[in-house]
């Protein structure tokens, strides 16, 4: 679960990581009040769940209150499109207004899980404010790493090793160590999957500060992170994805026109790849899951078809835990309950009760195209365009 920058900063601050003074605003009057408190010298930042906002005009430095309000008005007027969003972009509902700071050095700091090592790692670099992926490619020696033993956690000496490795002056070591230990604590205590401070800066007053911050909470740990004050901002997600989540479906909207209904995440990705390889484009990722019943399949079809971009549907089921007859019944129920036209549905069914499922679909006479393998499936999908 992604946090907004202001939520990430509130979390970090709670654990002793210094952040700039700032407040969140969702109206222009709030913006005016906050900007005034900084005598107009402030930074206005859109709060969206998408990276790359800086290059898309989502972060502006202003010198006076009126400019702050003008910038804010423009930002709040519509969606922002960045390299990480769809063409539609994401809505801007909140702005973070922060004091402007005089920065003398920009660093990079992150805490994340390294799946290969099966450990949490801390990464730091003197190349702050840049895309860390690019730094890793261009000058890998500029990236420092400390691997954390899960039994003892981050040790101060590891933070000291990083501080020295970053070439910080000795006077900054204790600030850096305290900051990193705090951030690590936040990471562990709130089951984060990522904390990224980029840039971590040194100001001309000699203070280390997290000027930008990203944080994500491990979705699978949310059950035990209930009392945290950060709430998920569902406005940042598409309505259709929120609906899917509410129904317990794993759904990701894409830009194509072939709606996909699959069981299993791996097979769902494979299905998207097959569609793409055939020269068509998938409209979504959708895993109905192993434990789906008729109602859930019905719901899945409804959600799938609520995307007006979907011109045809590919149902690809390998029955295992989920029986093909259950899926068939769900499709029939959904199709029959629709008042508007249903796009053509191509169905491939294998595994548990595949014959029964195909029989149900045939007998329902809802005009689905039954296919036997991927080749036939892609041919049929293409023929439908």
């Amino acid at each position, binding site marked *: 679960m992604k946090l907004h920058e202001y939520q990430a900063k509130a979390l970090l601050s709670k654990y002793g990581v210094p952040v700039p003074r700032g407040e969140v605003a969702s109206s222009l009057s709030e913006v005016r009040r906050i900007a005034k408190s900084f005598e107009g010298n402030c930074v206005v930042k859109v709060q969206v769940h998408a*990276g790359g906002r800086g290059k898309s005009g989502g972060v502006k430095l202003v010198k006076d209150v009126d400019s702050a309000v003008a910038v804010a008005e423009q930002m709040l007027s519509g969606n922002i499109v960045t390299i*990480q969003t769809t063409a539609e972009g994401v809505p801007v509902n909140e702005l973070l207004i922060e004091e402007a700071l005089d920065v003398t050095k920009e660093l990079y700091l992150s805490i994340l*899980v390294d*799946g*290969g090592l*099966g*450990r*949490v790692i801390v990464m730091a670099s003197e190349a702050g404010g840049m895309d860390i*992926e690019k730094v*890793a*490619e261009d000058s890998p020696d500029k990236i420092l790493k400390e691997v954390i033993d*899960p*039994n003892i956690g981050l040790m101060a000496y590891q933070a000291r090793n990083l501080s020295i490795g970053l070439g910080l002056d000795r006077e900054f070591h204790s600030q850096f160590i305290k900051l990193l230990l705090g951030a690590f604590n936040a990471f*562990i205590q709130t*089951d984060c*999957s990522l904390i990224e401070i980029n840039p971590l800066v040194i100001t001309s007053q000699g203070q280390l500060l997290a000027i930008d911050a990203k944080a994500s909470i*491990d*979705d*699978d*740990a949310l*059950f*035990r992170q209930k009392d945290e004050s950060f709430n998920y901002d569902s406005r940042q997600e598409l309505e259709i994805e929120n609906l899917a989540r509410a129904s317990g479906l*794993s759904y*990701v909207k*894409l830009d194509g026109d072939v709606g996909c209904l*699959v*069981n*299993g*995440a*791996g*097979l*769902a*990705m*494979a*299905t*998207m*790849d*097959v*569609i*793409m*390889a055939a020269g068509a484009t*998938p409209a979504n*990722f959708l*895993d109905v899951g*192993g*434990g789906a019943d008729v109602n859930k399949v019905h719901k899945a079809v409804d959600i799938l078809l609520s995307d007006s971009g979907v011109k045809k549907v590919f149902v690809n089921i*390998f*029955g*295992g*835990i989920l029986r093909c007859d259950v899926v068939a019944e769900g499709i029939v129920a959904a199709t029959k309950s629709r008042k508007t036209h249903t796009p053509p549905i191509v169905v491939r069914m*294998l*595994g*548990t009760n595949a014959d029964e499922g195909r029989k149900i679909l045939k007998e329902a006479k809802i005009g689905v195209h039954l296919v036997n*393998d*991927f*080749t036939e499936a*892609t041919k049929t999908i293409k023929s439908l365009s």
Partner: protein
Amino acid sequence: MSIFVRKDTRLLVQGITGKEGSYHTARCIDYGTNVVAGVTPGKGGQLFEEKVPVYDTVKQGVDETNANTSLVFVPPAFAAEAIIEAVDAGIQIVICITEGVPVSDAIKVCEYVNRSGARLIGPNCPGIISPIDKVKAGIMPGHVYAPGRVGVVSRSGTLTYEAVGQLTPLGIGQSTCVGIGGDPVSGSDFVDVLGLFEKDEATDAIVMIGEIGGTKEQEAAEFIQSNVSKPVISLIVGQTAPPGRRMGHAGAIITGTAALASSKVKSLEKAGAFIVPSPADIGTTTMEALSQI
């Protein structure tokens, strides 16, 4: 001989009385698995399907039945503890089906299991099936599988069934099929399973199914290059997945260049693996690879 599960596997099921646990335990027994015990705290003394004794603790189950392998179906919040309980009771191989285990739990538990010398498969995996030894410790549909000489290892459940569904009709049977699971941190990775298949006399070739996210496939590629002499047929899915979005599996998310399907394919190609061009071609590519042995 298969890997992980064998004729002498004595399976204990943790969470045997739950909805999923009971359903799949029955299917495992149907397939031929020797299920010797079940565990559900508070339900000790019952008999599952009138034959498998249920215990309150794994220790009791192991003491009474000499179970050596455990299949875990308990809810995510208790999965880590269930795995540790199994290892402490002397279970050698723990297979955790449970989906949704917090990553921090997985990190701790994997370290613990490694330290103890036992072996963890999963969490969030379909389990293990050995068609040649007729043992199924997992949730896969048994009828799709056929005995043979190809090992399968995969991060994905249904995609493995798909792969096997393409292999079996072509007359390509399987020695063992291992699901390592779709989570970012898991007990066994491709490298572990590839190493075992390489040593396994019953296996001639290995089908390896990876996906976007993490670097497990790159680690596998490095391992293949220097340690695997048998042909590896590899499919990576998620070529069309957008960056930054979790594609179902907790581990299937493109967080950087290395996490891209294309990076993984490149590494595996370099390591000499046979690359499956599209998920539709798993069977045919494997056939081709086998013809070159």
